[in-house]
């Protein structure tokens, strides 16, 4: 009791200097002790707060179903996942789809194709198409976030699969949604993009199909993916919106649509953390903060 005010003071202090996560980390730790794990609560938590980096991979694996809710099954199931990874890898090696010099992201692509039953014949392998490029982009980003190759493959695979299953139908509507929110926040910029013909050409596939992989540096990207993995694709709209708002002045000065696209595909990598923070605030403002049951 007596140290409560002190703790609050400390939290307030951390919040001010940027260590807001102290209380959050504690409540996540409590959630992770649940038996079995409550997926709904874990989702709500990561919708509301950034995941502490030491727990991120674990929470992602649970939310994506790589690990089951029962923690005492984790060793067994983790073993199965590892074996499956090794079996596939070995098979692809023997069949000469891959060798020791194949880049790991291409290895992941072949493994994914094998599991999705769309692996082309070895002699008929063609250069990667658009969908493969999306996969490779996400793989490259995931590889920066996750060290262990087995975890990395499973996270890529389940992230991509879950995204298609949950949001496949919503993705085509996201550009319209972006236009709507932009009209609320900055109608002048919207008009400029419309009139210059840039609106139709914005890098929607980079934003909404690759989920900003290859656009944001991983430290910012993982905070966006926290939200995607825990069940929101709307966040993607707000990150795109915040990018547009942040570079409003710059964009207002570009009249050729190609110039706009070129700039947006290579945005400066310095203040992306601030962009993501503001995007999450905007998202909470428009879509509400999910209630937290803890």
């Amino acid at each position, binding site marked *: 009791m007596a140290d409560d005010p002190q703790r609050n003071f400390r939290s307030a202090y951390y919040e001010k200097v940027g260590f807001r996560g102290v209380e959050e980390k504690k409540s996540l730790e409590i959630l992770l002790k649940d038996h*079995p794990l409550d997926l709904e609560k874990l989702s709500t938590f990561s919708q509301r707060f950034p995941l502490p980096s030491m727990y991120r991979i674990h929470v992602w694996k649970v939310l994506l179903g790589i690990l*089951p*809710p029962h923690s005492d099954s984790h060793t*067994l*199931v983790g073993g*199965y996942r590892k074996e*499956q990874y090794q*079996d596939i890898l070995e098979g692809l090696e*023997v*069949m000469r789809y891959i060798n020791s010099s194949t880049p790991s992201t291409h290895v992941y692509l072949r493994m994914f194709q094998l599991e999705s039953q769309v692996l082309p014949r070895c002699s008929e392998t063609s250069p990667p198409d658009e969908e493969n490029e999306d996969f490779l982009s996400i793989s490259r980003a995931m590889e920066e976030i996750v060290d262990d190759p087995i975890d990395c493959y499973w996270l890529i695979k389940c992230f991509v699969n879950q995204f298609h299953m949950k949001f496949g139908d919503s993705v085509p509507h996201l550009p319209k949604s972006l236009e709507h929110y932009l009209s609320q926040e900055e109608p002048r910029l919207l008009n400029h993009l419309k009139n210059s013909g840039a609106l139709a050409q914005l890098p929607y596939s980079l934003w909404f199909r690759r989920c900003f992989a290859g656009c944001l540096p991983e430290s910012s990207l993982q905070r966006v993916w926290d939200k995607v993995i825990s069940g929101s694709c709307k966040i993607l709209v707000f990150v795109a919106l915040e990018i547009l708002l942040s570079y409003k002045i710059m964009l207002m000065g570009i009249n050729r649509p190609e110039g706009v696209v070129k700039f947006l595909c290579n945005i400066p990598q310095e203040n992306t953390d601030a962009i993501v923070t503001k995007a999450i605030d905007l998202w909470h403002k428009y879509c509400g903060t999910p209630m937290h049951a803890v």
Partner: protein
Amino acid sequence: FLEDVKCQAKAELEASDNRHQAQKEITQLLQTELLQLYSRVEMEAPASTAT
């Protein structure tokens, strides 16, 4: 509690089955590859004896 045990067992079984499914996929690919390679070998064999 009983439901809980059942859920846990189901998740474990699914993971194990998933692994089995992947292995099956590999077997099928290996078979196709072998068949093609065999037919290639047989096509080439008479050609090389003819020269």
